[in-house]
Structures are given as C-alpha cells and as structure tokens.
C-alpha cells in the first residue's frame, strides 16, 4: 500500500531533520519521560551511565516503531490533513527508506538494550515495537473502533520497560503505571477524534466518532475518565504515590472529569460554532495531565530517597 507514494511523488534529497521527524519526536519525548520515571521509581538502582544508555535505546526503539508506523500508514497519512505533511506523504522520504530505517533501528535498539541492561527489558522493548507496528498499526487501527483502546497498550509499556531496566522484572507499581497510560489513552485520542473526525472519515479509519458517532464518543470519554480518575487517585496509596502525588493528582483529576462532563453535555452544533474550542483545550490538558502525574511520581521517589523522615502515608496497594 505504501509503494503508491513512491511512484507518485518524486523524491528530493532528504534532510537529517526529515529522518528525525520520521521517528515521531513528540511521542518519543513522552516515551522517554515515562520510561525514565519507571526506571527511577524501581526499587533497584543502577549506574547513571547504564540508565542513560538504556533510555537512549528505549528512545531509539520508540523512534523505530514511529518510522514503521509511518511506513505502513503512508496511504492514510496522505488523505488526513493532520498527517499529510509527514515525511513520506509529503515526498521527502521514500517508504522504502522509512521501512529500512525502522527495521535497522528496531534491531539495534533491542540488541543494545539487551547488552546495556538485561534480556527482560530488551524483550519487553521488542514486544512493544511489535505491538505498536503489527497489532495496532497493521491490524487494529483499520479494523475496529476499539483500535486505540487495545492499541493504547503499546504506549503504556515504556514505564514497565524503565522499571525492568533497573529491576530486571515486573512489579505491581510498574503495572499500575502501565494501567495509568492505558486508561488515559482512549479519552485522550477520542477527544482528538472529536475535532479531527472529518480526517478519520475521509481516510476510512474506524474511530469511535466515525462508527458510533459523536454523542457516543462523548459518553465514552466520560466513562473512561471516571475509570482513569479512580485509578490515578488509588495510585496515591501505592509505593509510587504519596502525599505530594495525592495533592497534585486530585485537582488534575477533578479538572479532567469536569472537562469530560462539559464535553458530554455539548452538542455538535455548539462545538462546531466555536471550532471545538473546549475539546481542543481538554486534549492539550490531557497531555499535561499525564506529564504531571509521572512528574510527581518522579518527585515522590526523589523526596523519599533524600528524606527518610518523609510524612507517614498509608500504602494500601
């Protein structure tokens, strides 16, 4: 399906920045950040050089998955306004180059992580790349409106990889961090789908907005945000949580919940009239929401390590 682009568009000599864009740097940033927090929150400590080198491997692995995703989705990226300027649909990089780069970086990142950290972390990274490219991009994305619900797991693995880099395994806390991103993904992407619905319809991607309509999507956003809030607040009472996490998490979740309720109560006419102002605002907020949660998990870890007499806090989970 991607060869079409190579035939239609005459390629210019790509710039280094075109290759970098192929690695989805914005996604990479979130992946590295959550993996770093997972690594920091793990009970075992590792040498900073090993930690940085391992996180570099995670970043390269995430970039490789991004390149392979762009290779596979080049046909629909061309149709969608949001993605039409990506390197392949805009003709700056051929799909073959993207495929080669994706495969080489996937192998390199997994191999190096196995050598730098451990086999378990490398296996988890390999599975994450496989899940994102094969399970999500190739299979679910064009097959079911549950695409981002199940596919969201790919974006949720990085804190588990980070945790396993330090500990060599899985812990309850790393599963909780996984769940936080997993449950956050649907409301985040469905909010985006609300104001990008035309794009998805045109590209025939069965997003919930396309298959079940806007009203159903608005309800789904609220249901998932309720589940997310319960999980996020519950995490305050695990070993990665604490009083600071609780103090930050509660207002953020109230804000997200109120936003979701407002989204549900809006009609399409109202949203169209102000060009989906609220939906766009909540979408941007949801990114901040995730960064803030992981940021405060990191802060809790540092505070606990530095001050042994930190406020007594119940750890129920």
């Amino acid at each position: 399906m991607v060869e079409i682009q190579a035939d239609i568009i005459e390629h210019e000599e790509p710039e280094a920045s075109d290759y970098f864009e192929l690695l989805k740097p914005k996604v990479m940033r979130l992946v590295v950040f959550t993996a770093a927090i997972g690594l920091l929150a793990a009970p075992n400590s590792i040498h900073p050089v090993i930690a940085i080198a391992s996180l570099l491997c995670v970043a390269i692995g995430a970039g490789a998955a991004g390149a392979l995703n762009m290779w596979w989705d080049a046909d629909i990226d061309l149709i969608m306004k949001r993605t039409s300027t990506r390197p392949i649909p805009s003709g700056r990089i051929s799909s073959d180059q993207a495929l080669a780069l994706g495969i080489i970086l996937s192998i390199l990142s997994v191999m190096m992580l196995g050598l730098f950290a451990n086999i378990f972390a490398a296996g988890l990274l390999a599975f994450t790349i496989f899940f994102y490219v094969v399970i999500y991009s190739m299979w679910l994305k064009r097959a079911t409106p549950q695409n981002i619900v199940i596919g969201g797991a790919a974006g949720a693995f990085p804190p588990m990889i980070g945790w396993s880099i330090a500990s060599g395994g899985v812990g309850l806390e790393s599963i909780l961090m996984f769940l936080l991103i997993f449950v956050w993904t649907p409301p985040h992407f469905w909010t985006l789908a609300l104001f990008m619905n035309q794009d998805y319809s045109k590209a025939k991607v069965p997003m919930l907005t396309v298959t079940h309509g806007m009203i159903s999507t608005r309800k789904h956003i609220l249901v998932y945000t309720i589940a997310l809030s319960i999980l996020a607040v519950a995490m305050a009472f695990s070993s990665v949580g604490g009083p600071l996490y609780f103090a930050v998490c509660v207002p953020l979740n109230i804000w997200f919940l109120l936003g979701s309720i407002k989204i549900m109560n809006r009609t399409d006419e109202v949203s169209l009239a102000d060009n989906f102002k609220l939906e766009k605002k909540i979408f941007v907020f949801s990114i901040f929401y995730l960064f803030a949660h992981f940021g405060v998990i990191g802060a809790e870890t540092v505070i606990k390590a530095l001050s042994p007499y930190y406020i007594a806090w119940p750890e129920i989970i």
Partner: protein
Amino acid sequence: MILKEHEIYSRRGRKNMWLGGIMGSLVAVIFLVTVVKLANGSKMQAFDHSLRPEMVESDKKN
C-alpha cells in the same frame, strides 16, 4: 568553469555530518557502558572452550 556548488551537496554534507556525529556518539556510549560494566566487576571473558590459568586456579581452590 562551475563557480557555484549545487545546493544538494551542502545538504548531503549536513546529513553526513549528522550521521558522523550519531555514529561517534554511539561509539562513545558503548565505550562508556563498557568502562562502567568492567568497573562494576562484570566478566571480562566469556567461556571460550579453552583452558585459562584462572580456571585452573579456581579448580585448585575447590
């Protein structure tokens, strides 16, 4: 006589500089990790099916 170099050469030059930098950084990272692993007591030699003095020594101790 060609006085002006085509733009594509400068673009390739920039790309090659980036590639060189990335390859150099990769070598530096591998070197640093090796130093740290050795300093932390990781094995310097894997079993290679040949008898080494330290193996004989350890046998004597046992």
